[in-house]
């Protein structure tokens, strides 16, 4: 290093790196509560044998009991089955509806989006036009169509939801990829002679992940609602499986007698979905600070 270069050293201190003071504002606490709720659900499920009775135990004498009545924290349904137990046993279905299709569709859609965004014009046209066909349908229509082809059932619902999610995730990934691919540092990497897959893996993918993951986490809550909705319509799990959407349907007619119990499963759907959405917003806020 010559003398001149030494004198040239930009001896300035690091530019303000926002001190990682986690912002503890209202949104943070909401996110914490949301995480707590989900954790609670999981814990309750794990200990279901200990804390809940048999969800299929029919008790003709104690039908549509009110919450907090003897031995039934959340009351009983039209067949006398304990609602609390059914809710606890039904947790995995709703969580699965939220997480499983999302995770699988992210892998599929993310991969396709990356390919479409950086893999050349042919790949782009092929993939995106194909996805456009799906955009011609409202999501529920696609789900209904898949169900009508495959038949109803929990697994088929999951498949339907995956198919519903892949086009939007592909689109979001493709647009993020295309945007990143147009930035100068990608051009610089290409000029260095690096080959496409390396650039995609090391330079593009990490930059595409934040917006995609932000989108994906916001979807989880919606999928919970959709999945339960399909069950509500009778297209998902079959009776007597304790699934929240199905329970809502079963308890519908009971509304005139015991509106609180009738609305309970839906309340759980709402709150759980809200919890995931809140978590999603908080995560998105945190991730959008990366790489600023």
């Amino acid at each position, binding site marked *: 290093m*010559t003398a001149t270069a030494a004198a*040239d*050293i*930009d*001896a*300035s201190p*690091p530019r303000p790196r926002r001190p990682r003071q986690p912002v503890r504002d209202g949104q943070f606490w909401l996110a914490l509560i949301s995480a707590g709720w989900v954790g609670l659900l999981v814990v309750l499920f794990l200990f279901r044998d200990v804390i809940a009775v048999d969800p299929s135990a029919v008790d003709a004498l104690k039908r549509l009991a009110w919450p907090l009545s003897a031995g039934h924290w959340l009351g009983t349904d039209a067949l006398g089955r304990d609602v609390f137990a059914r809710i606890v046993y039904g947790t995995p279905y709703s969580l699965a509806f939220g997480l499983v299709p999302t995770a699988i569709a992210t892998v599929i859609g993310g991969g396709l989006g990356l390919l479409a965004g950086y893999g050349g014009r042919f790949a782009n046209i092929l993939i995106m036009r194909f996805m456009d066909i799906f955009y011609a349908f409202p999501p529920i229509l696609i789900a209904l169509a898949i169900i009508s082809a495959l038949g109803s059932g929990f697994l088929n619902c999951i498949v339907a939801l995956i198919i519903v999610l892949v086009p939007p995730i592909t689109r979001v990934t493709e647009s993020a990829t295309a945007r990143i691919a147009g930035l100068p*540092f990608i051009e610089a990497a290409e*000029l260095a002679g690096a*080959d496409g897959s390396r650039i995609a893996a090391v330079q593009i993918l990490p930059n595409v992940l934040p917006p995609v993951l932000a989108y994906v986490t916001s979807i989880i809550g919606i999928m919970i609602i959709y999945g339960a909705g399909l069950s509500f319509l009778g297209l998902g799990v079959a009776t007597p499986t304790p699934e929240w959407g199905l329970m809502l349907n079963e308890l519908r007619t009971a509304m005139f007698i015991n509106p609180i119990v009738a609305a309970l499963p839906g309340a759980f759907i709402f709150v759980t979905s809200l919890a995931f959405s809140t978590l999603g917003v908080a995560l998105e806020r945190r991730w959008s600070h990366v790489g600023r």
Partner: protein
Amino acid sequence: MIALEARSISKRFVTRRAGSPWARSYVEALKAVSVTIAEGETFGIVGESGSGKSTLARIMIGATPASAGDLRLFGEGFDRRARAHRRRMTEAVQMVLQDSTTTLNPLLSLTDAVAFGPWARGTDRQGARRAAEAALDRVGLPPAQFGRRRPSEISGGQRQRVNLARAIVLNPKVLFLDEPVSALDKTVQAQILNLLNELRRDLGLTMVLISHDLDVISYLCGRTAVMRGGEIVEEGPTAELIASPRHEYTRSLIDALPHLGPSPASPAAPAGGVALAEAPLLEVNDLKVSFRQGAAVTAAVRGISLSLKPREVLAVVGESGSGKSVTLRALLGLLPPTAAVAGSIAVRGKGANAGDTAALAAFRGRIAGMVFQDPFASLDPMAPIGRQLEDVIMAQRGVGRRRAREVALSLLDRVHLAAAVERYEAMSYELSGGQRQRVGIALALAGEPAVLLADEPTTALDVSVQARILELLRRLCDEGGIGLVLVTHDLAVAREMADRVAVMYAGRIVEEGDANVVLDAPVHPYSKALLQSYLGVRHGIVPLPALGGAPPRLDEEQRGCAFADRCVVAIERCRSLPPPSIVTRGRRCECVFA
């Protein structure tokens, strides 16, 4: 040995005409251009935007295919469809892109960013890191200090160094540089140009420099080609080109460069005092602006005072971070609510507390009009320009639309917008940069203000257009009795336009006075350094006296002189006590040594 040779390169881009998918029109970006670059030389390509220089560069490095013509690399033909050829090219030739906030991957540390190239080429991780660290060291960023930083934590000049490191770590023989210093402050430009010089010498590089700035090209390049409209209009040894240009376009480029010599246009200051016959149009007293963000308080403007007389042009000169733009916005109360403003502002005698946005709102447009830096962004994209003008005129003058239209047309005439009637219904994106800026100026004049506040009005424009806009502003001042506060980072612009100059640094005016006095013989060490970073059109590789370091952080308390850390003549007192304000011979300076 010929390093790179381009023979009869043509490039056409297909564009679709709006509204008709069948009619295709072509843009001839390059028309049978031939260039020969000898090994070891430094070649310059100068031209304005649209001249095709960047396209030519990209074709020559094999990044873009040419429509016709061929390329030879070290004597052998180059076909970019052949992988082996592409590899030869990337091994021999590298390009450094123009600096921007996205020239580096925001998620990678600097070392990783530089190491990516060698790693992608097959070097193992360890070896790549070591090569990267050596390269960072070479460009003046010791890896111990900088290696782990992210791009968001370094300045523009440092970023450009990283760009350089990323290129040289691959050991190229030829280095292309696309506008290497255009986005940087003048003082930083000097640093980078010195570095380029060194690298060229130490690494034996063949360099090709592409720039719109003839000053930069003339500093480094032995031979230069001037491009316009896809063709090379003149080519030859740089010194000759500049001393006796043959083509008239070359001549116009040289003339359009703002010079730093004594300008014939600005009137020489009369010796001794000037009879203050006219009352000041604008008076600013002890303006202070600070921004609060959470717990941190950044003092952007730390107590400045200005005054402006009718027909006077005051240039406020400073680099990025000096607080000059904030000052302008404070005058009209345009700062966000997070800003704390103190001081007083008076226009035509009407005073107001600087923190009183409501009172300042009355100034907007009516008493002071603002001209913005980016002519595109300051116009409404969704309304025809005529209508935008009418709306402002109606709001400011309280007239009906018919009358407003007449006024609008006369304003467009006043700013010399050619074919104003035809352009009246045009949208902003249908106009050129210079035309948009003229519209911007017309909009600023709509309220018949006494003062014009111009924030870097020509920075975003081509060189040839800059001169005309500046001319227009000057004429508007003289004819309309308007005063102009011109904020700029470019000393040459100040020289061209200003009657008085105020030099800002870190929120304070460190030197101010008559333009001739301040610009010919600056006294403050910062002003001196600034002046010295100006190249002027000259040729010869002489190390530029560069100002090391960077401006201070403004969110920390400044006890002494803000410039002390970078000052060559600073003494102990400078760091502990604020500098005194000393007035000598038509100029005020804040330095112990004035």
